[in-house]
C-alpha cells in the first residue's frame, strides 16, 4: 500500500493528467451525445420513416460505450505510460470499438431487414438468408479491421479471401443468381404468390410461393413445378394477376379417340342407301356425319357428310347431294332425329325422281361405324383463367369431344363448356354466347381461337 502511495506521489502527473483528460472527454462526449439524441429524437418524431426509429434505438446503448472508449483512448494518448504497454492498450480499445460498431451495424441491418422483409412479403428463407449475408459480411469486415489494428499482414489474407470468394461465386453462380432473382422478384413485386404466370420456358399456373432459390408453380394438370427464381427474371413472364372466381366443381378435360368399324353393309344406289340407313345404329349415322370434322379439321370448315358427297359424286345427283350436305346439324341434338331427317330427304327424292342410277363399279357406299374411346386428360380448370389456358393446350380431339360428341352423341343437349361455365361459375351470359356458336361452321383450329378470344375478352 505504501509502495503504491509512494509511486503515485512520485508520478502524480502520470495519473492525474490522463484521469483529468478522461473525465473531461467523458463529460464532453456524454453532453454532446445527449444534445445529439435530443435533436435526433425531435427530428425522428417529425418523420414517418421506420428506419429513423431503428437507427436511434439501435445506436443509443452502444453510443455510451463509444463515449467511454473514445475518452479512454484520449487519456491513453496523453499518458506517459511506457510504449510496450501503451500500444497493446490502444489496440485493445480499437478492437473493442470495432466489435461494438460491428454489432451495432448488425443490429441495424437485422431490424431494417426484418421491417422491410415483412413489408415486401419476403419469404422466411429469403429473410434469414439476407440477415446471414449481412452478419457474415460485417464479421469479415470487423475481423479484417482488427487484423489491421494489430498490424498483421492484410494483403495475403485479402488475396486468399478474394480467391475463396471467386471460387464460391463460380461454383454457386446459379444458386447465387437464383437467390438474387428471388430478392429482386419479391422486392419489385412483379410476381407474387397467388399470381397466374406463364413462363417463356413453358411452365404456367398459379404461383404457390417464392422461396430462397425456387418458386413453386401449380400447373393446369394440378402438378407442382419448382422453377429457379432466375427464370422469373431472365425469361419473359406473362403475369395474369390474381385468381378469378373459383368454380364450384373444376372442369376436367377429356380426350377422345375413335376407331372405325366396318358393318359389312354397303349400298349401290339410293334405295339401298335409304333401306340400310333406316336399319343401322346411331353410331353409323354419327360416323358418316361427323368423321369429316375430325379427319379434315385442318382443311375446311365445310360441314359435310358422307351421304351428300356419295350421292353427288357416285350417283351423280348433285341436287340431292347438296340437300343432304346442307342439313344443318346444329339444329339437332340427337342422332335419331338427324337420321330421321336424312331418311326423309332421301325418301322424298325417291318418290319424286325414282331410284336413279347405280354407283359405278368400286364406288359402293360402305357403312362404317364409330367406336369412341373416352379418357381423362391431365388438364383441370378451377377458374376461367385456367380454363382458357388449358383450352390452348388440349388436343383437337379433346376440343371436339366437349363441343360435338358430348352434345350430339352423349345427348347432353349442350356443349360441355357452356354447361360448366353456367352451372359452376354462374357466368350465364358467357355460357349462352358459347352455346349460340354453330361449331359446324368452323375448323377445329378456328373454333378453338374463337372460344379463347371470347373467354379472354370476358376475363379482361
Amino acid at each position, binding site marked *: 500500500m505504501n509502495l503504491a502511495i509512494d509511486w503515485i506521489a512520485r508520478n502524480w502527473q502520470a495519473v492525474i493528467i490522463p484521469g483529468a483528460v478522461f473525465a473531461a472527454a467523458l463529460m464532453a462526449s456524454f453532453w454532446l451525445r445527449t444534445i445529439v439524441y435530443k435533436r435526433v429524437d425531435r427530428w425522428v418524431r417529425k418523420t414517418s420513416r421506420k428506419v429513423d426509429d431503428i437507427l436511434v434505438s439501435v445506436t443509443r446503448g452502444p453510443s455510451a460505450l463509444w463515449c467511454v472508449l473514445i475518452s479512454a483512448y484520449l487519456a491513453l494518448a496523453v499518458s506517459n505510460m511506457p510504449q510496450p504497454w501503451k500500444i497493446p492498450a490502444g489496440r485493445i480499445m480499437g478492437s473493442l470499438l470495432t466489435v461494438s460498431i460491428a454489432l451495432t451495424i448488425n443490429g441495424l441491418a437485422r431490424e431494417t431487414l426484418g421491417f422491410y422483409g415483412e413489408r415486401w412479403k419476403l419469404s422466411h428463407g429469403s429473410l434469414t438468408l439476407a440477415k446471414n449475408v449481412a452478419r457474415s459480411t460485417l464479421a469479415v469486415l470487423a475481423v479484417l479491421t482488427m487484423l489491421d489494428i494489430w498490424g498483421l499482414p492484410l494483403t495475403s489474407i485479402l488475396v486468399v479471401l478474394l480467391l475463396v470468394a471467386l471460387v464460391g461465386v463460380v461454383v454457386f453462380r446459379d444458386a447465387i443468381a437464383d437467390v438474387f432473382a428471388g430478392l429482386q422478384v419479391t422486392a419489385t413485386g412483379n410476381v407474387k404468390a397467388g399470381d397466374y404466370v406463364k413462363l417463356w420456358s413453358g411452365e404456367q399456373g398459379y404461383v404457390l410461393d417464392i422461396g430462397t432459390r425456387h418458386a413453386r408453380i401449380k400447373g393446369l394438370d394440378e402438378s407442382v413445378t419448382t422453377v429457379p427464381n432466375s427464370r422469373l427474371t431472365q425469361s419473359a413472364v406473362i403475369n395474369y394477376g390474381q385468381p378469378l372466381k373459383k368454380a364450384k366443381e373444376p372442369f376436367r378435360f377429356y380426350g377422345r379417340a375413335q*376407331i372405325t*368399324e*366396318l358393318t359389312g353393309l354397303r349400298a349401290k344406289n339410293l334405295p339401298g342407301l335409304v333401306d340400310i340407313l333406316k336399319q343401322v345404329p346411331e353410331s353409323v349415322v354419327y360416323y358418316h356425319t361427323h368423321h369429316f370434322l375430325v379427319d379434315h379439321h*385442318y*382443311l375446311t370448315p365445310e360441314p359435310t357428310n358422307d351421304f351428300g358427297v356419295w350421292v353427288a359424286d357416285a350417283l351423280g345427283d348433285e341436287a340431292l347431294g347438296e340437300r343432304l350436305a346442307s342439313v344443318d346439324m346444329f339444329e339437332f341434338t340427337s342422332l335419331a332425329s338427324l337420321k330421321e331427317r336424312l331418311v326423309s330427304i332421301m325418301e322424298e327424292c325417291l318418290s319424286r325422281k325414282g331410284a336413279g342410277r347405280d354407283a359405278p363399279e368400286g364406288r359402293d357406299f360402305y357403312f362404317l361405324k364409330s367406336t369412341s*374411346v*373416352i379418357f381423362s386428360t391431365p388438364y383441370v380448370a378451377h377458374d376461367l383463367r385456367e380454363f382458357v389456358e388449358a383450352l390452348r393446350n388440349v*388436343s383437337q380431339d379433346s376440343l371436339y369431344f366437349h363441343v360435338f360428341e358430348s352434345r350430339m352423341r352423349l345427348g347432353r343437349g349442350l356443349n360441355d363448356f357452356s354447361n360448366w361455365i353456367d352451372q359452376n361459375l354462374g357466368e350465364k351470359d358467357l355460357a349462352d354466347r358459347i352455346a349460340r356458336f354453330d361449331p359446324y361452321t368452323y375448323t377445329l383450329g378456328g373454333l378453338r381461337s374463337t372460344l379463347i378470344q371470347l373467354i379472354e375478352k370476358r376475363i379482361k
Partner: protein
Amino acid sequence: MLRDYEPIVGKGTVEELRLLAGHLSGKVVQNVNSTFVGGGVAEILSRMVPLLNELGVDARWDVIKGNDPFFQVTKKFHNAIHGRSEDITTQDFEVFLETSKKNVQDLQLAGDIMFIHDPQPIALISRRKEVGKKWLWRCHIDVSQPSQQVWKFLHPYVIKYDAAVFSAPSFSQTLPIRQFLISPSIDPLSDKNRELSDDVVVAVLSKYKISRDKPIITQVSRFDYLKDPVGVIQAFKLVKRTIDCRLVLAGGTASDDPEGDKVLAEVNTAANGDPDIHVLLVPPNSDTDINALQRGSTIVLQKSIREGFGLTVSEALWKAKPVVASAVGGIPLQVKNKFTGLLSHGVEGTAFALKQLLTNPEYAAQLGKNGREHVRQNFLITRHIKDYLLLFLAVEHAGDIMHL
C-alpha cells in the same frame, strides 16, 4: 424413338399415345406373321413393335416356320385372293395344312392378345381355347374379290377370330365377326420419306440423267399392267402438246412377276425414244433415290387401274407434292378430290388434271400443302400405333362408347 416424332406430329399426339398405352399395361400382345424380313408387313412390324415397347406395351413378334412348298402355296393363295387365276390343287391345301399343324404345335404362343397377320399363319387360331384372351386377324390384303376356292378354305378360320382388321372398306368381306378399319401408314423418318437436302435431290436426278429445266411429272410404281404405265405415257403426250415437261416412270419389276419384262418392253415402245420420257428401272432398296425422285418432281402421278392401299400416294402427299391419281383402291381415302389432290378416271381426265396443276402452280401448291396435312393427321405411323392401341382396347369391350 417416339420423341423423334414429336416435332412432326406434335407433343400432344405422342402424349396421347402414352396415355392410351397406359391402359394396356400388363397385357402381352403377340404378333405373328410369316417373315422377319422383306415385304410390307415385316417392314411395319419392325417399326411398330419397338415403338409399342417404348410405350410400355409388351408387344412381341414371332414368325411361323415353313418350307419352300408351303410358301409357294401361300403365294398362290395371295394371288388367288387378289382375283388372279391360280391352279390350286388338293395337294396344295394339304401342304398348307401340314405346315400349319406343325406351327400350331411348335410355336410358343403366350399373348393376351394374339395378333395374326395375313393368311399364312391363320390356322394358329386352332389354339384359341388354350392361349390368349382375344384373337385378331390383321388382313393386309384386299379380299373383296377372292378366288372362291381359297376363300372357302380360309373362311372357317377367319370366323373363329374375335375380330378382323382391314386396310380399306372396299378390301373387306361380309363376316359374322367384328371388323375394324385401320389404314396403313408411312414412316416420316424412314429413308423413303425423311427430309432430304436439295443437294441430295439434285445428285439423284443427275444420277438418272434427269434435268430440271422443265416441270417433271413422276409415277413411282412397278412395271405392271395394273399401274397403267402406258396410259401414263398417253396422258403425258396429251399434256406435252401444250406444255413442255418431262415424265419419269420409276419402278422395278417383281421377281415373281413374269409380266414385268413384257410391260417394260411395251412402255419403252410407247415412249418411242422421247428424250423427255425417262423410264427408270430402279434397283430394290433404293429408298433414298425414290424419295429424291418424288421430291424433285413437280407433280406425282398414280394412274393405277387397280390398287391396294396405294401408299406411294401418301409418300408423295407427305412431300407436299400435288398428286393426280385414279379413284381406285385406297387412293380416294388419301386424295380428297380438289382438297388434297385431283382424282381422275381415264387418260384424258388425267391429262386435264395434269394441265390444271402445271398452269396453276399456286393451286397445285395449295393442294400439296393440304395433302401433307392430310397425311400428317391420318397416314403417319403414329396414327397407326394409336389405332392399334385403340383396337387392343376396343376388342375387350362391347358397345360404341368406351370410357377408360
